[in-house]
């Protein structure tokens, strides 16, 4: 048994012989109450979603998963396809299951898939990833004086992120994939 504070996106909780995949979680401290973890969980079999709140001091049955190193291949109408680096077996995850993290996926990126009974349940990305800026406004004299120290930049994977005003097109940056925020110049 584990503490709810170990709950992360993509982990699987067993409750009354049913498996629930955590799709969202949030630590809550209602101030005048104990600490809680509010989760949104999806039934692995029926796909039904519900909100469930755990006290941090209770214990949950987190299912042991099999972790496999995979390489990202391509995205099509069926979802995201990965290949097991050890045995070349291919696995596809739906857009829903991959969720917002899909935007970080670049061809041949090494990731870890959490598997349960042969099915991919969750995707783990490297925590820090390098991207190249492909589009951003050049810094204009006076920007920092007026307080604009960050600006939007589009990167090679297609998403936008706020970067310091001095960054230029073609430069490489490190992004934290947990928070989606700029960390430093690569």
């Amino acid at each position, binding site marked *: 048994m584990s503490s709810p504070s170990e709950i992360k996106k993509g982990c699987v909780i067993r*409750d009354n012989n049913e498996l629930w995949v955590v799709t969202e979680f*949030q*630590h*809550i*401290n*209602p*101030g*005048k*109450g*104990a*600490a*809680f973890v*509010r989760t949104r969980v999806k039934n692995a079999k029926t796909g039904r979603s*519900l*909100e*469930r*709140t*755990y*006290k941090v*001091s*209770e214990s949950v049955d987190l299912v042991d998963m099999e972790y496999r190193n995979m390489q990202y291949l391509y995205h099509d109408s069926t979802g995201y396809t990965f290949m097991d680096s050890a045995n070349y077996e291919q696995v596809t995850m739906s857009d829903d299951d991959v969720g917002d993290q899909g935007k970080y996926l670049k061809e041949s990126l090494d990731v870890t898939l959490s598997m349960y009974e042969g099915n991919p349940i969750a995707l783990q990305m490297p925590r820090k990833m390098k991207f190249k800026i492909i589009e951003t406004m050049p810094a204009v004299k006076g920007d920092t004086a007026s*307080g*604009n*120290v*960050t600006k939007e930049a589009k990167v090679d994977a297609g998403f936008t992120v*706020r970067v*310091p005003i001095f960054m230029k097109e073609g430069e490489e940056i490190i992004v934290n994939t947990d*928070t989606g*925020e*700029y*960390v*430093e110049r690569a």
Partner: protein
Amino acid sequence: MNMDLEKIKTRSVIVKLIRRWFDERGFLEMHTPRLVGLPGQEPHLDPFWTEVFTPSLTAHRSSFPAALITSPEYMMKRLLAEGLDKIYDLGPCFRNNEPWDGTHDPEFLMLEWYRCEAGLEDLMCDTEEMIRFVFHELRATGYTLRTEPFRRLTVEEAWREYSRIELAPLLENREAMAKVVKEHNQTVLPGDSWDDLFFKIFLSEIEPCLGKKVPTFLYCYPANMAALARKSVDDPRWAERVELYIGDFELANGFAELSDSIEQRARFEEERILRHKLGKKIWNFDERFLSSLSKMGNAAGMAFGVDRLVMLLTGAKSINEILPESARERFEEQLLDGRL
């Protein structure tokens, strides 16, 4: 490096506007001490402790433990008891062991104000007027505050509306509460208190709906959930406590303050037992606070998260954007990189 200078400048303007609103209405700003020997007892809050050294001590000691306040409440109430009325305090407060999740930072700006001979109605009016004043003076862009009045909903009404549960018959009845909580697909453990069960439904089904369309005051809490509040005169099963929800934030928490020192001592005892049960540090009650309570009269006070108002009005997604450097940025990256 997630700071946004525009938002940091707006934070400064908001703090000035809040002070102006209170100053213009005859409130006096108190600068209560941040460092105290006996901090708040609240069982679910953890103060930061430190050791104070001074050559000036007369007792046979050169140092003693002290803590940073989690709220200026005790000192503010002592000032009321000394005869002040309409006072506010706006400054940093400190809470250890909180999640650094984008809405919390271990040091944050807290506003508290108190008035004598007042109740929840006064607190709700002050809060709504002050927020409207800041919103209009600032011409805020991150949030649209409509002209319709803030919604006022009792806890009982909220349970009825969002969970279709009649809460009154469940008050102080853990068995009945456990049955309902189970029916609502939540876990129930033998160790869960009535409050824990309350929160499992409240946080899952009710809180996420509050304040989304219209700012909403939630008031009249079950009596056992308000450690420093008076019980309602009309119905002692409920206590005079209010919270304010706007957008994604819980912004404020206020009480018609308990002024019965015997009852306060009993609640402190319960809290100390709970702290002990939770394996947390315990310390002596603040006797100066307890003995001043009876002189305080029927006062009411509100605690208000200034940083959350700044986030709301600037549209910041994370507290990290409105602080020069959040704790997460100061410590976490460096810890991961082995520099601390």
